[in-house]
C-alpha cells in the first residue's frame, strides 16, 4: 500500500483531546475502534485466544495507546489505521512472549514500546480487509452520532430505507405516514449524517489519503449515490461483524467444551 506523507493539520483536535487524557475522547475511540481491534486480534490469534483474553488484549491495546500518545510523532506520516494496527500487534506479540516465557518457567517481561511502529512497520502491514474495517468503523461512528442528533422516528425511517433497503411505501405503512413524509424524514437525517461523516473522518484521519477515502467510496455525491454507497459499505461491514460474531460464538463454544 502506498504511503503518502503529505501531512496537514495532523495535530487534530481529537489527538489533542487524547493527549489531554479527555475521558470522553478515549471512550469514543474505544466505542468506534474497539470492535475492529478485537476482530483483528482474534484473526491474528488464529483461534488460540479465548474471549476473555481478547477482551483483555483490546483493553491493553488502548492502554498502550494511552501510554504512548505523548511520544507520538505525526510528522512521520503514519496513517491512523496503521498506528492502531501497530500497537495492537505489539500488544499481541507481548502476550505471546509472555506465554512462551511462562512455558519456559520465567515471569512476564514488561511492555516496552519502541518507536518503530511510528514509521511504516514491516510487520504491521494493513490489508484491504483491515482498511475496510477502519473505514466502516468511522462510518459506524458517524451513523451513531447522527442517531443521537436526529429524532428517533426520522432516524428509523432512514435506517430502514438506506441500511435495510426497504421500499419507502412499506416504511410509510409501518410508521403510519405517507411515502413523501418518509422521504422528508430521510432527507433530514441525510443532511446530519453528511456532517457527522465529515467530522468523523476529520477526527480519525492523519493523512490525506485517509481523508480522501470517503470520496473514493462514493460518499461525497448526490443523495441517491450517497445512500447507495453508504448502504453498500454498511452491509459489507455487517458481513464482517457477522463473521466476527460467528468466530466469537465458536470461541465461546470451545471454552465451554474445554470447561466440561
Amino acid at each position: 500500500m502506498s504511503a503518502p506523507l503529505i501531512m496537514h493539520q495532523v495535530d487534530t483536535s481529537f489527538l489533542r483531546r487524547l493527549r489531554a487524557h479527555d475521558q470522553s475522547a478515549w471512550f469514543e475511540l474505544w466505542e468506534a475502534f474497539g470492535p475492529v481491534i478485537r476482530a483483528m486480534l482474534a484473526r491474528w490469534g488464529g483461534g488460540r485466544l479465548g474471549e476473555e483474553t481478547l477482551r483483555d488484549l483490546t483493553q491493553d491495546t488502548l492502554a498502550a495507546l494511552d501510554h504512548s500518545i505523548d511520544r507520538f510523532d505525526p510528522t512521520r506520516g503514519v496513517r491512523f489505521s496503521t498506528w492502531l494496527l501497530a500497537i495492537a500487534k505489539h500488544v499481541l506479540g507481548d502476550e505471546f512472549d509472555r506465554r512462551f516465557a511462562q512455558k519456559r518457567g520465567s515471569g512476564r517481561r514488561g511492555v516496552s514500546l519502541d518507536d518503530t511502529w511510528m514509521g511504516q512497520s514491516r510487520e504491521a502491514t494493513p490489508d484491504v480487509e483491515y482498511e475496510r474495517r477502519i473505514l466502516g468503523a468511522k462510518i459506524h461512528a458517524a451513523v451513531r452520532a447522527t442517531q443521537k442528533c436526529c429524532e428517533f422516528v426520522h432516524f428509523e425511517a432512514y435506517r430502514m430505507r438506506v441500511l435495510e433497503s426497504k421500499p419507502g411505501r412499506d416504511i410509510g405503512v409501518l410508521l403510519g405516514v405517507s411515502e413523501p413524509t418518509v422521504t422528508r424524514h430521510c432527507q433530514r437525517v441525510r443532511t446530519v449524517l453528511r456532517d457527522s461523516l465529515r467530522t468523523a473522518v476529520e477526527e480519525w484521519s492523519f493523512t490525506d489519503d485517509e481523508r480522501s477515502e470517503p470520496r473514493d467510496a462514493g460518499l461525497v455525491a448526490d443523495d441517491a449515490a450517497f445512500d447507495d454507497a453508504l448502504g453498500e459499505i454498511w452491509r459489507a461491514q455487517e458481513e464482517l461483524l457477522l463473521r466476527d460474531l460467528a468466530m466469537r460464538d465458536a470461541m465461546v463454544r470451545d471454552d465451554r467444551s474445554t470447561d466440561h
Partner: protein
Amino acid sequence: MTELDLAAAAPDILTRFSALGPLAWVLSAVGVIAASAALIAFGMVLTRLGVAVALLFAHIGKAVRGFGGDLVRFIGGFIVSLLLLPVALARLVMLKPVPARACLHSSWRELRDAGRALISALLLRPLQLLGFSSIVGHVAARLPVALDGKEHTSLRSDSAVFEGYTVLRELARGGSGARLLVAQPDDRTRRRISLAHGLVVIKSFDFDEGTRLAEMLRESRSLDSARTLGLVLDHEASQRRFHYVMRYYEGVDLGKFVRTLHETAASANVDAHAFDRTPGLDRERLVLVTSLVRDIVATLRDWHGAGLMHKDIKPENAIVHEGRATVVDLGLVTPLASQMTLTTHGTEYFRDPELVRQAMRGTRVSEVDAARFDLYGAGAVLYFVLEGTFPAHGVLSRFRKESPACLQWIARRAMAEFDARYANADEMLRDLDHAIFGGDPAAVRPADLPSMRSGVEEAKSDEERFLDATLRSDSVRTPVPPPDATTSTRPTLRLINWWTGAYRVETVRPLPQEPPAVRPRALAAAIGVLIMALLALGAVVGIAATLTNQ
C-alpha cells in the same frame, strides 16, 4: 311414643309451650339460630372433606405419575448408557480417543441420571406419597450434589452455618464475590420471615473468604434499598460476615432458556436457512419470550416507582420460574435519588453506553433520570430474546432473524439515545402489552403502538390520514385489538419428548388457578361450630321440654 301419640299430643304441647309467654319466643329464636348454624357448619365440613378427598386423589395421582416418569427415565437412561458403550469401544478401536472419551462420558452421565431416577422411584416417590414432602425436597436437593461428587467441604464448615436455615447446596458465585447458598428455613424461621413454603437463597459476604470491604459496602447499600421493596426476608451482620436472605426461585435463567428455544427453533427450521434471512422464533415462542421481557419491565416499573434502579438488567439476572420471569441479583440496586456518582458497573452489551459516559464525567445518580439506564437493559434483553445473541452495537445492532417489526421497534426505542428512548417503564410496558396481548405481534405495526399513536396522529395531515387508511387496507392486516390484560392468557410449555427435551408451547389457555387448599384450622373451626350449634340446639330443646312438662 308412636307417631299417632305425637300427633295427638302436639296441640297440647304447643298450647303449654305458648303459655310460657315471652320465654317461648326467646327459646324458639335461639333454637332456630342454633339449627341454622348447625346446618351451615355441617355443609362447610362436608365441603372441606370433599376437597380433602379430591386433593388426596390428586396427590396419589401425582405420585403415581411421577413414579411412572421416573421408571421410564430409568429404563431409557440405562438402555442408552449401554448402547453408548459399544460406540465408545468402536471409536477407541478406530484410534479416536477423544470422541471415545466423550462417548464414555455421555454413557456415564446417562447411567447417573438413570440411577437418580431409580432412587427417586423407589425411595422418594413413596415418601412423597406418605406425606414426607419436606424430607423428599431435602433429599432431592442433596442427591444430585452427592452423586456428582462435587460436595463442597466448606458447606459443612462454620462459614456456611446460618441459624434457622439448613444449607442444601451452593450456587455459582456472581460478580460480587459473595457466596450464594440455597437453604431451607426451619418452621420457626418460616413463621418469623413469613414464608409459607419454598426455599431461600442466602447471599453471604465473609472477609475470611476473600470478600473485600468495597464489595461489602456496596452490597449493604443495595440491601437497604432492596429491603424497602420487601425483597429481603432476613439479614444479619457480624464482625467478619454479613448475609441476607431472599426467596429462591428454582428455575433456569433467561439466557439459557432463550438459547435453548433458539437452538430448538433452528433445528426445526434447518431447511429454511437457505433463504436470505434466518428464520426466528415461531409465533408462540415469540409471545412467550416477549411476555417474559414484559415481566421484567413490569418489575422495573415497580422498582422505579419505589425510587430504585436495578442497574444490571441482563438475561442472566432473570429467572424463568413457573412461566414467569423474576428479576434477581440485587448487587447493584441503587436509589434514584442517590448523591453518589454513577459507576460503570454492569454487564457489557446490556449496559447503557450513556451510563459509562456519564460515569466518566462524574455525574451523580440524582442528576440524571437514571431509571432510563434500566430501560436500555430491558431493550437489550428484548433484542436478546428475539435474536438469541446480545446487541453488539446497541441500537444500531441489526436484526438478523425474522421477528415482528413492532417488537424490533420496541427494542430499538428502549436502546435509543438517552432522551429519545421511552420516558419510563410504564410507556414501554404499554407497548409490549399491545404487541403481545393480541396474540400475533406480526399483525401490529410500530405505528399502532400506544407510544407512537399520539405523536404520529397529531403530526399527520388529512391527506396523509387518507393515504394511510388506503395503504393499510390493502397491505397490512388490521391488528387484533388487545384484550383486557387482566384476562389475558400466557403460553405454557409442555414437555412432549422427555428424551430429546423437545416441548410444545401451548397458548390461549388460562393460567391454572391456585388449587383450593384445605386448611386444617378452617376445618377444625367448622367442626367446632357444628358441635357448638348442636349442643345449643339440644340445650334449647331440653329447656323447652322441661318447662313445658312443668
